[in-house]
């Protein structure tokens, strides 16, 4: 399987809306062994000036990996998910993610580089919060996540 070199520069528009729930924040926080009260106790989050429970710093990966799935599952991409290794990851937060946020992600393929028989693919998700109930509502920039995956070639 060969990675399609034309992937570079491709974008996938915001698709489904991700509703950030309190129990999801608590579940994700427990899963990364976070104990800060602002993830669990609404009053503790509000005491820090937040509108609701605050998501842990890597929570946006849920939304980013859903966006990445559009690329990985695109039959035209040539990516075999079972050969994917996560190489690097970055989160830049423009404002905290809190419970009640309705998030959408735009995916951009920033780089495709051949490595042996495989490829290193760098994607960027621009994550926005919707101000209203429909996908056409005004959007506020929330986070930019950048991810590189190594798709191992045969024998790698």
């Amino acid at each position: 399987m060969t990675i399609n070199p034309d992937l570079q520069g491709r974008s996938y528009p915001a698709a489904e809306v991700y509703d950030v729930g309190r129990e999801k924040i608590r579940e994700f926080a427990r899963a990364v062994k976070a104990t800060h009260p602002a993830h669990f106790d609404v009053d503790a989050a509000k005491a820090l000036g937040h509108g609701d429970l605050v998501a842990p710093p890597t929570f946006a990966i849920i939304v980013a990996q859903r966006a990445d799935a559009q690329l990985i599952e695109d039959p035209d991409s040539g990516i075999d998910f079972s050969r994917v290794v996560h190489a690097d990851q970055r989160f830049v937060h423009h404002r905290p993610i809190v419970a009640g946020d309705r998030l959408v992600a735009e995916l951009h393929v920033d780089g495709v580089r051949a490595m042996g028989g495989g490829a290193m693919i760098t994607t960027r998700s621009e994550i926005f919060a919707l101000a209203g109930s429909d996908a056409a509502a005004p959007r506020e920039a929330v986070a930019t996540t950048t991810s590189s995956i190594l798709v191992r070639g045969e024998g790698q």
Partner: protein
Amino acid sequence: MTPTFSELTVGQDLGSRSIEVTRTDLVKYAGASGDFNPIHWNDAFATGVGLPGVIAHGMFTMGAAVQLVTDWAGDPAAVVDFQTRFSKPVPVSDTTGTPDAGAVIEVSGAIGALDADAGTARVDLTVVAGGQKVLMKAQAVVRLA
């Protein structure tokens, strides 16, 4: 307590912690994150793709490691930028039914840089499992009052 920017110095030690990891933790992380790649829960699949066995999600290690920073900062939202490279996998032994950990991740942090104009501190994390650095360039930028 939130640290005060003016009292910080480059090289300052922010302490360390040990994170014990079990297969159950990986199943919990898979469910919480939606990442169900079988290399994180199925030994036969993991060895079939050339891994030593089930390995932790890189994002589990990254997410657990930053808790040292979050707790130090006093507010999880103070972490405005967090990045790493995944340099080595973290194999997690199957210790199901015993009180033992399947892997132990050692995390320590120090102030790597200070930006007075932005009011931010960069925390450099050292993350080791099985005697090897499993994250490289693990850096969290924290906005301080």
